[in-house]
């Protein structure tokens, strides 16, 4: 008994001592990648730029230190290579701390890279446990991703945070690695991501440009701002949007309606046995945010007209988005998935030709808008009572 205790004590202490702290990485021996840009170089090599956090500059606590980093909150490291892992190794050789990607919040692909195809880089991103699936993916429209990371964006602690926050605001596609993979692997759907440009007129700042749609892991085209809005409404994902319309009672002036809530429901009906008919039912709740007419919007008649007009406007945007997608033959809406979920056997029959079929698929869009709020007043405040059209 006594011997057994002794042996087990010895074993435990040996296990503790010999194993030591084998995985131990002190927090200040780790370089935290905040964003990565992946581009395609002219000789068809991958180029990666990694933005690593400089903690002392980021913290509000230790500002008084001034340890010679010029207040730069991030540090960029650049490498090129044939595979992502090569890039990683090359970047590590330039970085004095162990590179850790578990806090990376953003991956930017240059447009060239995205058009070339992401199939080669996506494997590492899905394989390595160090990658966070909540990382946002965006495409730098018409430019290299690396340029993005070098942009100075003073209001945020580090520039990539700006894009992340913009994404989270709900104008954009909000595509994370996880959603990208889901869309890329589901039958009958294709991934889409937000595209950004740099607004260069004044100070260079990021600007959401639209949505880029993929087909077979390759960027095939982009939706502009209006189409993107229609697209996001069809997905039911839109959080912030606005529609500017004119109504019959005052055909010269604009009324802008903020879209507050969108509910979207695709309906699949089989016709002639195996012809799926798809239609979208959009329920939108809006709020008047600007009224340049002389109308008193307290009158329900105008609101009814407004509902009609906004419905038409949204319908137009949605149709435009759909048409664009069909021209790219990329079913980023996941219409195929909706069919597959309802009629898996039938979808399997034409799954291979779905991109071609999608391009010709008739999709009905029915929009039902309810403008529920008109703001603090009916007519414009500047108008005299007799100028207002009740």
């Amino acid at each position, binding site marked *: 008994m006594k011997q057994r205790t002794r042996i087990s004590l010895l074993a435990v202490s040996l296990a503790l001592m010999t194993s030591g702290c084998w995985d131990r990485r002190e927090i200040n021996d780790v370089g935290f990648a905040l964003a990565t840009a992946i581009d395609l170089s002219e000789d068809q090599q991958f180029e990666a730029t990694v933005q690593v956090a400089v*903690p002392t500059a980021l913290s509000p606590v230790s500002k008084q230190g001034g340890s010679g980093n010029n207040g730069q909150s991030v540090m960029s490291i650049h490498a090129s290579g044939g595979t992502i892992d090569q890039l990683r190794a090359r970047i590590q050789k330039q970085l004095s701390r162990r590179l850790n990607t578990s806090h990376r919040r953003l991956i930017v692909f240059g447009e060239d890279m995205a058009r070339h195809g992401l199939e080669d880089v996506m494997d590492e991103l899905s394989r390595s446990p160090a990658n966070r699936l909540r990382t946002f993916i965006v495409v730098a429209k018409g430019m290299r991703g690396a340029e993005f990371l070098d942009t100075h964006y003073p209001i945020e602690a580090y520039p990539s945070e700006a894009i992340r926050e913009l994404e989270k605001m709900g104008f954009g596609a909000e595509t994370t690695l996880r959603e990208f993979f889901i869309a890329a692997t589901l039958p009958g759907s294709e991934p889409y991501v937000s595209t950004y440009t740099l607004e260069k007129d004044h100070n260079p700042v990021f600007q959401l440009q639209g949505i880029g749609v993929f087909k077979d892991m390759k960027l095939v085209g982009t939706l502009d701002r209006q189409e993107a809005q229609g697209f996001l409404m069809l997905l039911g994902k839109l959080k912030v949007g606005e529609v500017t319309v004119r109504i019959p009672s005052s055909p010269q002036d604009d009324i802008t309606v903020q879209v507050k809530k969108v509910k979207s429901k695709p309906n699949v009906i089989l016709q002639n046995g195996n012809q799926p008919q798809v239609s979208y039912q959009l329920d939108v709740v809006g709020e008047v945010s600007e009224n340049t007419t002389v109308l008193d919007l307290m009158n329900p008649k105008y609101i009814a007209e407004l509902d009609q007009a906004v419905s038409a406007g949204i319908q137009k945007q949605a149709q435009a988005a759909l048409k664009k997608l069909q021209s790219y033959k990329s079913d980023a809406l996941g219409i195929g998935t909706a069919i597959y979920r309802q009629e898996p056997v039938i979808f399997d029959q034409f799954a291979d030709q779905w991109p071609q079929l999608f391009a010709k698929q008739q999709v009905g869009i029915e929009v039902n808008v309810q403008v529920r709020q008109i703001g603090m007043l009916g007519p414009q405040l500047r108008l005299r009572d007799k100028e207002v059209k009740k």
Partner: protein
Amino acid sequence: MPRKHRRRQLNENALNSQSLDELKQIFGESTDLLIRPFPGGHVVYLRTQIDQVRLEETVLERIRHGFQLDRISSAYVLPVHTFAQATQEVLDGSALLVVDGQQEAYAVRINLTEHRAIEEPSTESVIRGPRSGFTEELDLNLYLVRKRMRTPSLRVEEQIIGEITRTRVALLYEEGIVEPNLLREVRSRLQTIKIDGVLESNYIEELIQDSPFSMFPTIQNTERPDVVAGALLEGRVALLVDGTPFALVMPLTFWGALQASEDYYSHYTIATAIRWIRFTFLFISLLFPSIYVAITTFHQEMLPTNLLLSVAAAREGSPFPALVEALLMEVTFEALREAGVRLPKPVGQAVSIVGALVIGQAAVEAGIISAPMVIVVAITGIASFTIPRYNFGYAMRLLRFPIIILAGSLGLFGIVVGLMLLLIHLCGLRSFGIPYLAPLAPLSLSGLKDVLVRVPHWMMRSRPRQVGKRNLQRMPAGQRPAPPTPHAEGGGEAE
């Protein structure tokens, strides 16, 4: 020495100056032993143990003209037959009247009853609740308990433990509630004690507890008579030891150690909420530094990015690994706490000022310790004082260190290993035959009403099954107060 004389009969031959010599011999040359003659005999007493005034008034005055038993006006007069008895009486503060030619002597108890006033217990203070605490005087402590339980079924069994100190130990229980097995067990454990002296109840605690190697207390100690009374009402057993204000209450369970007396004196919702705060902070006091160490050195991906960057920035300048930092700070904190307890009161303030500097701002500004660690240590320190039983808090504080080391070497895995070992240990612990984790493990649903929550008194109708199974019912049903129903004439009972 005294043992030699124990069996000697005082009246071996008629009491006379010879037996006085014998008594003198027993006490040696102690200068406080006085033998004063009176007409027809001698008074023997220890000057330091008796009340001089009472000696004069109740004894000396009455026997001025010779000894007559019925003239002694003391409440405690005992005929004494043996030397052992006589010695003990003298030691306890009696005046021993040795009358020439009589077969027996008389002990008149006129002991000095010096004790400090009944004060608020300093280790278990309450906001609402009785303020009286035990003192060092056993009789006074018994009075405090008896006053709360005015029933003949409160039984007091007194015995003497300690060969030299001959300390009085009183075993208290409530007849009719207490489980006979428990009582038998406590009695038999007390009987096995053979020790030279008992200076504090911990001597007894360590000699009768179930798992002598465990850090977790299986016997509760308390300074509060109301806690003792509450325990007796549940069917538990209490030991009061002369010379210490700390009474022992047994058995004690893990959950019992987390119940404060005030839980029963404040509204049950608040008591329940506070109990949960205690549970939470129990874990914080055990684990917080370990989790900090594990996450910052192994699992950085678990922190939110902004928090991570703040921690990283704060740790940037610090020279020690997080593990060393944590151990350093925790040891410093414990040292400060110990110094605070031990230091003479006038210097206490100096310690708190210097201490605040050492484990505070100065250490951070000097770049020796990172700021988050100071926060961690501070929270842990506060957490460990939320545990109502001080000695239970000790266990948590001590176990913190091995778990920090495990966390620093194996990460969260190490913490889990540590917790598993702890859990196994706790599951194996027993207190006088009752599983330490009862009523949660083994599960007794009705017992949980006073563990995870504190139900209102009108719902606490039964005693804890573990100790009070002999007489489970505390009160009849249907005592929930309700406004009078307008229709019921005879005051209908609320559901």
